[in-house]
């Protein structure tokens, strides 16, 4: 009888140990997932703000009318 109780207790202890391990694993995974998705959301929302710096680069890269550069040449051309 005693032997039977001992083996059942041991079995239960092993099951509880494995159960605790499983719970710890899933809890840690849940928090990791929640944190990383929060970080991703932050990255995405920051992107919405940061596109202004790209727009500035694009706008600054616009070449204005070239005709102004030829003013002096055109003035001298009139003398010929």
């Amino acid at each position, binding site marked *: 009888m005693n032997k039977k109780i001992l083996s059942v207790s041991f079995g239960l202890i092993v099951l509880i140990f494995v159960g605790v391990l499983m719970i710890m694993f899933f809890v840690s995974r849940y928090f990791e997932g929640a944190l990383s998705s929060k970080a991703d959301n932050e990255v995405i929302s920051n992107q919405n703000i940061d596109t202004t710096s790209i727009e500035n680069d694009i706008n600054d890269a*616009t070449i204005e009318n070239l005709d102004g550069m030829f003013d002096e040449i055109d003035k001298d051309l009139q003398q*010929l």
Partner: protein
Amino acid sequence: MKIIVATILGLLFILPTYAADVDRQSFKEERQRINQQRQEQMAELRKKSEEFKASLSQKRNEVKDIYKQNKEELRAKLTEIKDTKKREAVERINDNIAKVNSLAIIRFEKALGLLDSAIQKVTDKTNKAGDSGKDVSSVLTAIEKARISINSARLAVSEQAGKVYTITITNENGLGKDVSRVRQELHTDLSLVKDKIHEANKEIKLSLNSLRLVIDPKSIEPKTKDVDAITNSSNDDSSEDE
């Protein structure tokens, strides 16, 4: 018997957990590989940009020497022109043609630097959006198109930097026409390069809008109007130049 059953049950729980950990490990390794690839890409882009700057500088120096030589030849030819004012005007125009080309190249170079920076930023943000699970395939296609446009513009600027404009004088009566032809040639060439830069500019704007569409579809409507505005202004500029 019960111990064996308990051990088997335990293993049944532990093994999938271990397998999940292995999966996560391989995912991390894949991410590291992608990051490394990106860094290599950026280093390559930086190298390309440096090479472009060096080649432009070399071409500018080569062209300077040729202009000096041409100036002497032109001066000798101008002795045939009796009107001093006309002679001086032609000399000034010759100098200004070289100056205008050089200034335009500096502007184009600066614009290309900004476009490089813009497309790199778009690429970085696209990669981040991709990492967070968004489907960025359309943005990557737009980025590729923009990069092709930038390379085409860069090639055009490089070719323009190596061009020399020589005034060939036939006689005093045709002086205006001779000089005007060279002036027009320079104007046309610069306008073509400018159009290439506008095209690259437009493609980058489109890739940015494509990225916006992926991140926040609501923000796209007013931005599409911006692209139209740029396209129209580019067309207006071209028609003005003509």
